[in-house]
């Protein structure tokens, strides 16, 4: 078995040396900490700005444990120098989240006796923003390629020959790594990836006067457009949510190894949802996720960043786009940034492979948009009153059924929460003579 493995390895290495330009590239990792508790990364947010092979990746984590225990290991495509690593402004993720979040739009019916006028009010359902020795080294096959400090983080770039060695090295150097790390680290080592290891430098952390850990951004060049999620599964209990904001100069970015599905959108729902929009969105998302057998990524937003309609937040200005990693705009050029917001809920079983992306020329706009229409409740003094009331009542009933279908909430309960408009039946003779 061992001999076969060596044989296959050597054949592939020889083939690799002659045929292939660059080894596989990958990204995104797992937390390692010295404490056992609060080690779950259940929701994370990532910004990927990419043009050609150039990529700026910003990772915001939702680490919930003690700051001194925080550490993260992420596979990276190349050895990163200090200037390729940066601290991102935590607000930029909130801005992108706010801009691209599924939104509730509210319309007020006007007096049916007058010409219809709409007043628009926007509300957004932002996800809760996530804040979240040399001889010995040689023996283990681990090399410290780079060592530097950026902001509050001490960063090491490691390369390793064997996953066993890397696991032992990390343990010996005080990182408590999750069980099963070896099996997951192995493929990345085989693909010749480096490991980006960051932990918090407490002195620096005090000085920065930030309460939470700030996102880390790295810039690199690689033909492979993917995001490793497998390592992240080690810390996780059950399902994890990942929001990926993909920025490109051309159009929508989609997954190549999983389906990308649009979240149900542009539906009219009852008025009361205004007060429980978060609840509604979470329930609807879960239902859509189960309906698709939990194996798809959901598209929540796809839009050119120069505008929005309706806007749930102001579009990002040039400076903010730069902070988000957009490197291709210049002051004289038209702002060509297209944002794709993907929401992936994954477990080890349903997403066995890391996420692979591709950029497309698809400039179709999409947004998760939910509509509330408030009926006109004042007194109506014209002939259209009955007609309006009846139509509105039917609409309210349709909205109730839509909501029940989207969320599986009990239809009777939904109806009981709706403030149905009083509708007097229209006398039947009016239909023939009026």
């Amino acid at each position, binding site marked *: 078995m061992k001999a076969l493995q060596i044989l*296959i390895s050597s054949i592939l290495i020889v083939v690799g040396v002659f045929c292939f330009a660059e080894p596989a590239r990958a990204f995104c990792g797992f937390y390692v900490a010295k404490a056992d508790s609060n080690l779950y990364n259940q929701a994370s947010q990532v910004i990927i700005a990419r043009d050609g092979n150039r990529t700026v990746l910003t990772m915001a984590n939702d680490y919930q444990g003690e700051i001194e225990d925080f550490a993260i290991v992420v596979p990276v495509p190349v050895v990163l120098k200090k200037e390729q690593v940066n601290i991102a402004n935590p607000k930029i993720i909130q801005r992108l989240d706010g801009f691209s979040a599924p939104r509730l739009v509210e319309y007020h019916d006007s007096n049916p006796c007058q010409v219809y006028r709409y007043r628009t009010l926007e509300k957004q359902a932002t996800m809760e923003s996530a804040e979240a020795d040399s001889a010995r080294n040689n023996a283990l096959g681990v090399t410290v390629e780079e060592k530097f400090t950026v902001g509050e983080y001490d960063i090491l770039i490691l390369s390793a020959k064997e996953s066993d060695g890397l696991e032992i090295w990390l343990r010996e150097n005080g990182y408590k790594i999750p069980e099963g790390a070896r099996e997951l680290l192995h493929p990345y080592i085989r*693909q010749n990836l480096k490991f980006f290891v960051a932990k918090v430098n407490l002195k620096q952390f005090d000085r920065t006067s930030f309460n939470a850990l700030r996102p880390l951004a790295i810039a690199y060049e690689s033909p492979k457009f993917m995001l490793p999620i497998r390592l992240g599964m080690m810390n996780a209990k059950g399902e994890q949510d990942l929001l990926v904001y993909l920025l490109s100069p051309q159009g929508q970015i989609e997954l190549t190894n999983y*389906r990308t599905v649009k979240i149900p959108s542009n539906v009219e729902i009852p008025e009361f949802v205004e007060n429980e929009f978060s609840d509604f969105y979470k329930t609807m998302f879960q239902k859509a996720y189960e309906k698709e057998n939990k194996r*798809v990524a959901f598209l929540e937003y796809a839009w050119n960043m120069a505008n929005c309609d309706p806007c749930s937040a102001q579009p990002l200005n040039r400076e903010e786009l730069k902070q988000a990693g957009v490197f291709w705009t210049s002051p004289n050029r038209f702002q060509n940034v297209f944002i794709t917001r993907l929401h992936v809920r994954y477990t080890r079983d349903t997403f066995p*492979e890391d996420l692979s992306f*591709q950029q497309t020329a698809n400039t*179709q706009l999409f947004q998760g948009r939910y509509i509330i229409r408030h009926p006109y409740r004042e007194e109506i003094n014209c002939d259209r009153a009955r007609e309006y009331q009846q139509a509105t009542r039917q609409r309210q009933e349709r909205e109730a059924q839509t909501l029940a279908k989207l969320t599986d909430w009990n239809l009777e309960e939904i109806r009981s929460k709706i403030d149905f408009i009083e509708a007097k039946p229209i006398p039947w003779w009016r239909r023939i003579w009026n």
Partner: protein
Amino acid sequence: MFLSDARDYQILILASFLFLGILTRDWTVQPQFIFAAIASCVLTQLSLTFFLDFVKGKKEPDFGLNRVRVKSYQKFRSLAIGGLRSAAITGLGLSLLLRTNDYNTMALAGCLAIASKFFLRVENKHFFNPANFGIIAVLILTNNAWVSPGQWGTDWWYLLLFIGLGGIILKKVGRWDTSAVFLIVYAGLEALRNFWLGWDLQVWQHQLSSGSLLLFALFMLTDPRSIPNARSSRIIWAIAIALVTFILRDYFYISTAIFWALFFISPLTILCDRIWQAPRFNWQILESKKLIYW
């Protein structure tokens, strides 16, 4: 007669996949694009058939193409009907696979696909799969075309459906060997890579249960008119495509690897046919034993 030709089954099956995709897979294909694809294929087919027939008519004998001469009306009719079937298949294939946001790009793909059949010929046999040629042409020539490999997902019942219906077509045209060899070799290469990397079996399963991969292997790779005639050469040809797909996908990170692999290996058909000789495939002979045309 409808369903007298294996291509009629193929048209039905591809059309049903298209409906299935639009209805259940959340595709953003608009009817206008399907129309652009099918119309451009059919019109190019008709006009080139007519034009070439006209040119040949003037220069007797007919380019040494060894065609059986029949009365001109009958001849044109059979040419047109046979050609229309093929054009419809190419148009449906493009609608299923190619994505763009410009009708012109779709129409260009259709025209080039069909034109490749008429002009890129050696010994009166075209060697590019028309739909594949159209896709690659617009991927190179325009910047608003793309292919979505993830569009079918990995649900098992789609896979069963593809295998079942693909099996019907392959049985009719007798080209199951090509699909089988391609899938076995490709699966084997991916298994080796996964084993070497240390990924678990699930990753391998996930890679192979891609609906797009299966659809390609069962429907595009098996076009009996453009692939080698002899079984042994088809086997070598399929192995080459599997190998190139594997290299392009896993080492050059090209998401459309299968289409490029088929494109690069297609010209090998000529060489294969020279080395291993076998009777050429003919749709009409296949079904009715009547010798007419392409």
